[in-house]
């Protein structure tokens, strides 16, 4: 019987180890997911740090329509909208557009805009040199601001894509913001 208990313990040890490994694997999926999306450019996530403009010339043979849309998450009491709704650019051409925000509540709120590009596969070709989404936006009650976005569309953008939609969702992160 002792022999039996010993061989049982061997199996149990392996199985319990598997259980813990799979629990860890569940959490490992979180960074794996980000890396996977980053490499494949899936998911419409744009780069979170500023890109540098490589001056390889402008491809005037193509015109890309870039549309801007905004959305407030969970009724953030801000007015938040693009100053122009769309712009036509040539790949490689740098553009500067503004977004308008006004805190219409009676308290200070820290906002964070999170960008997403559609179609998702185009996200890796949408390069932001400067973006208000890289930083948090604190606005006092009633304060308004124009926030800039400087970008260009990569010359390697696949041929079948002629329209890009850049969507910003505004979140209230006052309770999570760095002081």
């Amino acid at each position: 019987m002792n022999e039996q208990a010993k061989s049982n313990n061997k199996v149990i040890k392996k199985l319990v180890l598997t259980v813990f490994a799979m629990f860890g694997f569940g959490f490992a999926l979180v960074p794996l997911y980000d890396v996977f999306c980053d490499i494949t450019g899936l998911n419409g996530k744009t780069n979170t740090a500023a890109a540098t403009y490589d001056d390889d010339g402008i491809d005037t043979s193509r015109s890309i329509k870039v549309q801007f849309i905004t959305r407030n998450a969970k009724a953030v009491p801000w007015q938040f909208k693009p100053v122009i709704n769309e712009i036509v650019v040539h790949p490689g051409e740098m553009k500067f557009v503004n977004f308008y925000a006004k805190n219409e509540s009676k308290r200070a709120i820290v906002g964070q805009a999170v960008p997403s590009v559609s179609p998702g596969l185009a996200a890796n070709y949408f390069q932001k040199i400067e973006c208000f989404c890289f930083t948090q936006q604190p606005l006092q009650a009633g304060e308004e601001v124009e926030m800039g976005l400087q970008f260009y569309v990569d010359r390697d953008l696949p041929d079948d894509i002629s329209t890009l939609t850049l969507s910003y969702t505004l979140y209230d992160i006052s309770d999570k913001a760095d002081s």
Partner: protein
Amino acid sequence: MTTDTINESLADDHHGDSHDHKMTGIKRWLYTTNHKDIGTLYLWFSFIMLLTGGALAMVIRAELFQPGLQIVEPDFFNQLTTTHGLIMVFGAIMPAFTGFANWMLPMMIGAPDMALPRMNNWSFWILPFAFAILISSFFMESGAPNFGWTFYAPLSTTYSNGSTAFFVFAVHIMGISSIMGAINIVVTIMNLRAPGMTYMKMPLFVWTFFITAYLLIAVMPVLAGVVTMLLTDTYFGTSFFDAAGGGDPVMFQHIFWFFGHPEVYIMILPAFGIVSTIIPAFARKKLFGYSSMVYATASIALLSFIVWAHHMFTTGMPLFGELFFMYCTMLIAVPTGVKVFNWVATMWRGSMTFEMPMMFSIAFVILFTIGGFSGLMLAMTPIDFQYHDTYFVVAHFHYVLVTGSLFSIFAGTYYWLPKWTGHMYSESLAKWHFWCSIISVNLLFFPMHFLGLAGMPRRIPDYALQFADFNKWVSIGGFAFGLSQLIFLAVVLKCIKGGEKAPAKPWDGAEGLEWEVASPAPYHTFSTPPKVD
């Protein structure tokens, strides 16, 4: 060999009588480490959960009996659909299969008990607490979970009604219970088989539980992980699934379905095992293609890990992803088709008789196949865009889970009731149960296909007028199916109380070591292992 083992088990029986330390009253059940007692507990618990989840479904169907809001508020309706799903999946189907495993596995492989009897006791007795936590949230200010049994973020985080913590801890306990049950099954099968019983000589029932246990060990921890992330997102300010903090709500769906898809095979593979035991017994032929059945089960289990995103076709996946998951999903139809073919081939030219276990098994083969085909339709990406989140999906998974898993549980119960109770069940009452169930279940779920194709969304308490007639019939089918299960309760209670005395082997075509011990099975069986050649 037969007479030897019977003599041996008779000796066991005598031994059991003289040295039996069976406690009496509630303590017997609280402290028991006997696999048969624990199996019985699991089966009764799952039946109580079936009636509880069924009662919730009755309220759902009453609300949907006619268009408009009559009985419940939309928020409470959402709580009903959510807890109905959770109770049926984690409370009714999964514990019922663990109950079968406890009762039958040791007897089928000639072992005296499960390998880890104390853990076995614990893994059962934490279950009632899990469901007490879950169900108690109905009586709290927040209400029960209302975000669907799939608890997608941000419904369960940002928009939670406050029940998330109760939900998460309930799921943690259910998960721990399942994992312990699965470890017990694996150790028992690996180490306690009777001498001479090689892996490829094990009954297919044992094989399917073996593979299911591995699936549980692989994915239940992932479920525990994802609900933990949900908990910290909701209450501790992390941002796993919150885009404001750099997280991603779509990632929730990926992690959830990485658990969720193998989970659906956890609920159907044991059903395959039960049906594969019963059909040969009543066709009086050996199971056709035993080894192909084993390999088919294993390949279904392996494929289940790479098809999860077919639940998410409409989340905006790239074309390549959609194609990959579509083809992998369709690939599962191949081993499943092998199984259905083998069941039919087993019946082919067999000397069939149609006792209740066989009737439920045949119903299983036909109706599960319907559910399989609608699954194949859902697997096609372009078509899924139309079917997604409609009643077509509801029809599909109820065909595989009710007429699939649940019917196999009924079939198995009728098949082994004589062994468990020592009495034959009342065949006429069982016939009532079967025919009432089979007619009402199809009235209940078949029209749902058409409702879904016509565009009726799931999880909605009200609907457009054009769906009114079909919903009325569906509801009538639902009430009838619910009531039919009371006949089942009557059959089981009557069988426990008395009835025709069952011989050791009441089915002349049955095979397996469990039929070589007396009926009812003595408290201790196979204290000395039988010899298998």
